[in-house]
């Protein structure tokens, strides 16, 4: 990877109280690329995103975004940085008390002094980009899951961010919406010239669209590479994950639960 | 909800709320009888004010002319100093008499002003010289019993 790096995570450790979540993570996200962080639920993927967004502070190590150490910024600096970021939350997190239009217009109204006509044009452009022109007067409750995710996507890119983060963008979508959202993520990344980070456990869809993949298990990177590298990976866990096999390093049983012992203990 | 309709509702709500406050002030309360801006102060000393309280009314010939605004004990004379706020429309002569009276047998106490005959009027901040203290019921009963006892000797 030769191109310029937008986000750099160096030797990051993080622990909730004394429970370690991240153990020495090193990652680099070059400009213009679409990169996936994959792993099981609860392996620390979302925690990595939260570090990039400046929500969490690493206990050790540093996270640099656009050349600045994100956890050293004060509130103003952090907010300034976040205006250049977009984040798509797991279930879209649309504001349920606003129309689709107001949702997409939200950041423009909060952060700019643009006149209402220009905001209107911009919102329509964004809605058109996600293929939902015409839904502007609907409330989020009136949208299907896939449409809501696309509206959230339009809201995420409202201010043309340089960095777009997706937290499980495929969760709970039907196969058609899934492909649509996947293709949109790719297209928007290339059209906006942005850098995208996708946190997901949906292997098949993300392998189709991303440039590079980090595989995280139990707070550490266990594999990385392009889609082909990952498919061909010799690592047993990656193999089990990618092909969704039941037998492998991840056992079916919860580690501490020994049912037979429990039966024996009861007197 | 339509923006304008929402504004209309909130506007009506605020107007109704302020209207209710005005009703409470004018119809239920005594703001209509207040003339705070157009008043002047007079003072009077009483040896005993009985149960007189701040905000008690001040009447002349039964007409409400002002309110008691402050009651303190003057430690030089050991008398109660009563500050009165009187409506500017009413002027009283220098030899006006201030009485502490009771409305009804057990009602609340007020100050009655009985105008004298002088031509000079009291000015703002001046002291009413002629005062009569409150009739304290217990003293009255005590005197009555005492005199009864004297008489039956």
């Amino acid at each position, binding site marked *: 990877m030769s191109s310029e790096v937008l986000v750099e995570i160096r030797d990051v450790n993080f622990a909730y109280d004394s429970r370690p979540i991240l153990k020495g993570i090193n990652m680099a996200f070059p400009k213009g690329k679409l990169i996936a962080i994959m792993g099981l639920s609860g392996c620390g993927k979302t925690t990595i995103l939260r570090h990039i967004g400046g929500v969490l502070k690493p206990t050790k190590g540093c996270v640099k975004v656009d050349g600045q150490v994100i956890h050293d910024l004060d509130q103003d600096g952090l907010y300034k940085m976040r205006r250049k970021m977009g984040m798509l*939350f797991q279930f879209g997190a649309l504001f349920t008390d606003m129309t689709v239009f107001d949702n997409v217009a939200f950041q423009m109204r909060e952060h700019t002094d643009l006149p209402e006509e220009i905001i209107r044009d911009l919102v329509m452009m964004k809605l058109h980009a996600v293929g939902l022109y015409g839904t502007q007067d609907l409330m989020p409750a009136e949208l299907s899951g896939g449409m809501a995710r696309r509206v959230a996507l339009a809201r995420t890119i409202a201010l043309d961010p340089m960095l777009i983060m997706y937290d499980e963008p495929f969760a709970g979508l039907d196969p058609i919406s899934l492909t649509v959202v996947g293709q949109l993520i790719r297209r928007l990344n290339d059209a906006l010239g942005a850098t995208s980070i996708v946190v997901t456990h949906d292997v098949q869809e993300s392998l189709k669209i991303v440039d590079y993949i980090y595989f995280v298990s139990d707070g550490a990177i266990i594999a990385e590479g392009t889609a082909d590298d990952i498919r061909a990976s010799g690592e047993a866990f990656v193999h089990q994950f990618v092909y969704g096999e039941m037998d492998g390093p991840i056992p079916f049983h919860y580690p501490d639960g020994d049912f037979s012992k429990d039966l024996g203990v009861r007197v | 909800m339509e923006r304008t309709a929402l504004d209309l509702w*909130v506007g009506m709500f605020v107007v109704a*709320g302020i209207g209710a406050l005005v009703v409470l002030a004018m119809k239920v309360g005594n703001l209509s009888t207040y003339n705070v801006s157009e008043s002047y102060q007079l003072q009077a000393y009483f040896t005993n004010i009985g149960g007189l309280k701040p*905000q008690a009314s001040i009447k002349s010939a039964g007409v409400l002319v002002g309110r008691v605004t402050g009651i303190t004990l003057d430690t030089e004379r050991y008398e109660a100093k009563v500050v009165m706020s009187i409506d500017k429309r009413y002027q009283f002569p220098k030899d006006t008499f201030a009485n502490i009276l009771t409305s009804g047998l057990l009602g609340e106490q007020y100050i009655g002003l009985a105008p004298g005959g002088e031509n000079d009027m009291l000015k703002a901040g001046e002291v009413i010289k002629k005062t009569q203290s409150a009739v304290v019921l217990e003293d009255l009963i005590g005197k009555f019993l005492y005199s009864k006892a004297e008489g039956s000797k």
Partner: protein
Amino acid sequence: MAVVRSLRGIGARVINAVWRIGFGSRFFLMTLVYSGTSFRRFRLIVREMFSSGVMSLIIILVAGMFVGMVLGLQGYETLKRYGSESALGTLVALSLVRELGPVLAALLFASRAGSAMTAEIGLMKATEQLSAMEMMAVNPIARVVAPRFWAGVISLPLLTAMFSSMGVFGGYVVGVVLIGVDEGSFWSQMQAAVDFQHDVMNGVIKSFVFGVAVTVIALFEGYDAPPTAEGVSGATTRTVVESSLAILILDFILTAFMFRGD
């Protein structure tokens, strides 16, 4: 062992309560600090006044009317024994303006608007709307909490005034129209006894203080709610319980300061 365990339980509860009070105070402070946006964009407050103020109108007006009617009825029965039916207006107005108006309106407001605020903010938190806002570089306290706070603080005194007015009207309907107390003495005795500053304004101050207490509790409970269905429903219950207690305790304290000595 049981003693140690129950002692530990008490300790944990006390520590937890102190923590929450600390967080709550910090939250209140932050709300005040970040109130600038709400006043620069007053529309945000207007919108919330609709949902907390206008939507509470019906319950406030109907409840006020009936409370006044009951006061008229009960007051008449009691005053009749002492032959002072003419003081009915005084009794109705003073009890409403000083106590029943501010307290009952605030209790109704807490269960109508306060619980709705808690549920709304709790759900916004549970569905990551607040985190999304934070990630869009918009402070949720400035954008979501502060407008609701000011809307509640403005709405409750207005609602209270309407409650008391409706109550006096209800007392008038029962006392004068139905029972036949003399209309002149009903109003004149009332006006002679109810002082604008001492009674009406103190009632307004009370309702303002209650407005601050109820909205801060409601917003904090919502903001602090665990992001689950049980979390939000528990927070809603706590809002109603805590604000009712806060209203009654504050009422005692305020009354002790305001109406001492008469």
